[in-house]
């Protein structure tokens, strides 16, 4: 593909496009012409004579959105290429409508140097399906003690702007404070996995409540999340730094974020599709497919994160795509690995929970799955409006593509898919990275 494309008859997610909700009356149909990876014309266009048939996309009935940006992806390479590679993860991302993914640092070795970050960037570029943006570790080896080479990672070719020890929380308040402070010159952000290890230790794997009591599983209380969010918000305020709350999962956590934002603190937050859609009761059968960190929460928390995503308290949807080999999941529940797949199903879940319920329109989806995460991650080429001059990083969504998820069909190398067997109403039809179709 040369980066030339003619998209005809798409519903454009500008203004307040709301298909398939009643607001779909506002939808604007239009054609988009892409040359050399950039949008050159938008409107009611005539197909240019020089474009071959394969460069024409019939988008009748499809919604055109800016390509999705995932703030939170685990690609497992280097170190666990049996679970996922950058190639397989990139393919899954493209299939999910993503044009950029932030690859978490908890690989082996950990992404805690500029060289390690550049290597991931280069591997991603070589594959070319999605922009793979490395996240840098906050502390060396994710050990939570000494700062990693934050500045060298920021100044590297990878230009790291998001730092995270994800999988672990930066427990030590002094270390967190120094990291927030040190990163100020780079306008970088720390994405914190908010989990007070004294309140929710490494064994904690079930939302603390009646169910964890009945099942005899170590509880993971909401306060272990909200207390760290509150601490980090106040640290960010104190030093003038930027903090991002990874996978907020509780009503209390949302309340703290809302309070911090009202106070003017530079705080942002993300929620995962699984915390939007899946409840703690799924753990009752001890199926490790539903073991994730933070754990699935009760319906009150699900309601709270949905409302917060709708009102903007939560800025972005991020998948926390966490592939695991079968033999790491087929342990007793407390011994099994944390995490579930998410890249390929994110749009379908968000459409069901947020759009089909009327909580968000499609431009709202564009904001939360593209514009906001791109802004948080400092990605200037993603999350842009569908307008002349902008890079053609796009996704075409079919809002009425009823389908049932089959874990066996995944592009991921892993099968820890909590969505297996579920039927959704919307699907990604095609993904376009700088004018090239990366998934169709």
């Amino acid at each position, binding site marked *: 593909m040369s980066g030339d494309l003619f998209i005809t008859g798409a519903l454009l997610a500008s203004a307040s496009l709301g298909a398939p909700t009643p607001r779909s009356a506002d939808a604007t149909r239009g054609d988009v012409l892409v040359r050399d990876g950039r949008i050159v014309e938008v409107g009611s266009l005539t197909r240019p004579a020089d474009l071959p048939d394969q460069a024409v996309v019939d988008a009748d009935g499809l919604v055109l959105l800016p390509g999705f940006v995932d703030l939170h992806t685990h690609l497992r390479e280097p170190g666990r290429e049996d679970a996922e590679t950058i190639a397989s993860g990139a393919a899954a991302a493209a299939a999910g409508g993503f044009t950029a993914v932030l690859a978490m640092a908890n690989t082996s070795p950990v992404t805690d140097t500029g060289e390690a970050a550049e290597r991931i960037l280069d591997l991603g570029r070589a594959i070319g399906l999605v922009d793979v943006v490395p996240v840098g570790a906050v502390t060396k080896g994710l050990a939570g003690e000494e700062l990693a080479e934050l500045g060298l990672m920021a100044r590297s070719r990878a230009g790291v702007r998001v730092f995270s020890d994800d999988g672990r929380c930066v427990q030590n308040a002094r270390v967190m404070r120094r990291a927030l402070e040190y990163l100020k010159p780079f306008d970088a952000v720390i994405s914190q996995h908010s989990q007070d290890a004294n309140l929710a230790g490494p064994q904690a794997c079930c939302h603390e409540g009646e169910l964890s*009591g*009945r099942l005899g599983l170590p509880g993971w209380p909401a306060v272990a999340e909200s207390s760290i969010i509150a601490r980090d918000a106040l640290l960010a305020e104190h030093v003038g730094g930027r903090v991002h709350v990874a996978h907020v999962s509780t009503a209390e956590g949302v309340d703290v974020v809302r309070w911090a934002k009202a106070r003017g603190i530079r705080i942002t937050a993300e929620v995962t599709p699984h915390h939007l859609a899946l409840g703690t009761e799924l753990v009752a059968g001890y199926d490790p497919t539903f073991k994730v960190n933070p754990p699935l929460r009760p319906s009150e928390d699900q309601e709270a994160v949905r409302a917060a995503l709708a009102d903007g308290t939560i800025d972005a949807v991020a998948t926390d795509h966490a592939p695991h080999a079968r033999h790491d999941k087929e342990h007793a529940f*407390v011994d099994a690995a944390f995490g579930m797949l998410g890249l390929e199903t994110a749009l379908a879940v968000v459409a069901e929970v947020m759009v089909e319920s009327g909580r968000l329109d499609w431009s709202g989806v564009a904001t939360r799955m593209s514009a906001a995460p791109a802004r948080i991650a400092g990605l200037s080429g993603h999350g842009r409006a569908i307008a002349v001059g902008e890079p053609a990083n796009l996704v075409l969504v079919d809002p009425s593509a009823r389908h049932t998820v089959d874990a066996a069909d995944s592009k991921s190398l892993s099968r820890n898919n909590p969505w297996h067997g579920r039927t959704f109403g919307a699907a990604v039809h095609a993904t376009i990275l700088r004018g090239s179709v990366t998934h169709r």
Partner: protein
Amino acid sequence: MTRHLLSSADLSREQTEAILDTAASMHDVQRRQVKKLPTLRGRTVINFFFEDSTRTRSSFEIAGKWMSADTINLSAKGSSTSKGESLRDTVMTVNAMAVDALVIRHNASGACQQVAQWVDASVINAGDGTHEHPTQALLDAYTLRSRLGSLDGRHVVIVGDLTHSRVFRSNVITLKTLGARVTVVAPPTLMPSGVSAWSAADGFATSWDLDETLYAGDAPDAVMMLRVQRERMSGGFFPTAREYTVGYGMTRPRLERLLSANPEAAILHPGPMNRGLEISADAADSANSLVLDQVSAGVAVRMSVLYHLLAGDGSEAAA
């Protein structure tokens, strides 16, 4: 009868009573010179213990042998790392040998339930983490029935580390199934999370105050003292052993006051006991103590469980 025994909730009242009735017949066998029944001849029972437990393992082993099953003990360390063989691979290796039953003890809650979804054999939960221990609850019920007769309307108090107790979780189910009234007592730090909603849903009472529970007019028919792991103290669940004993131990004065209200009150403990911590020597060795009866009932109850799960063709009887 069910194919597996994973939770005490798998058993209806009728099924629970049938197991206890059969256990009485088994108890007779135990007193004979020839302690062997041909009933499970040709069946293979694997005692698969991922966690050490001499008491429960030997009890299941004797039960299997007295029923003429081929009984084999396997032990494995519960793998808590991703490096070791997965639980599924471990049990599927055994399953491939076409065994009839897997008696599983595991340090992780829910492990037996997971295994039951993978294997062809009947799975019997011999204690899974801090979840359940259904055969212990059955032998406790058997012991109580032998002493008290019907448990309908009887008041049973369970005291101790409820958070980490699989004995409590199974007992509260079995006792309620048999019509008993149950009160559970623990300091707030050893109450399972969400216990207020749970107790309301399942119809048992909770209390932080042992004395109030024992002497508030509704004198218990039985008091079950749970073992307190000394390592809980380092977890900060309570300050000192001394303070625990004062608040929640079956001390001699407490025993005397209990027996003055109900001279027939039974004292149970699933063992092993921390004498002087949760139970005084006076209570453990008193005529009201059923501790040794519990041990003695263990084999008979497990014979009965093996019989009911394995002897038939696996179908539910008509009518």
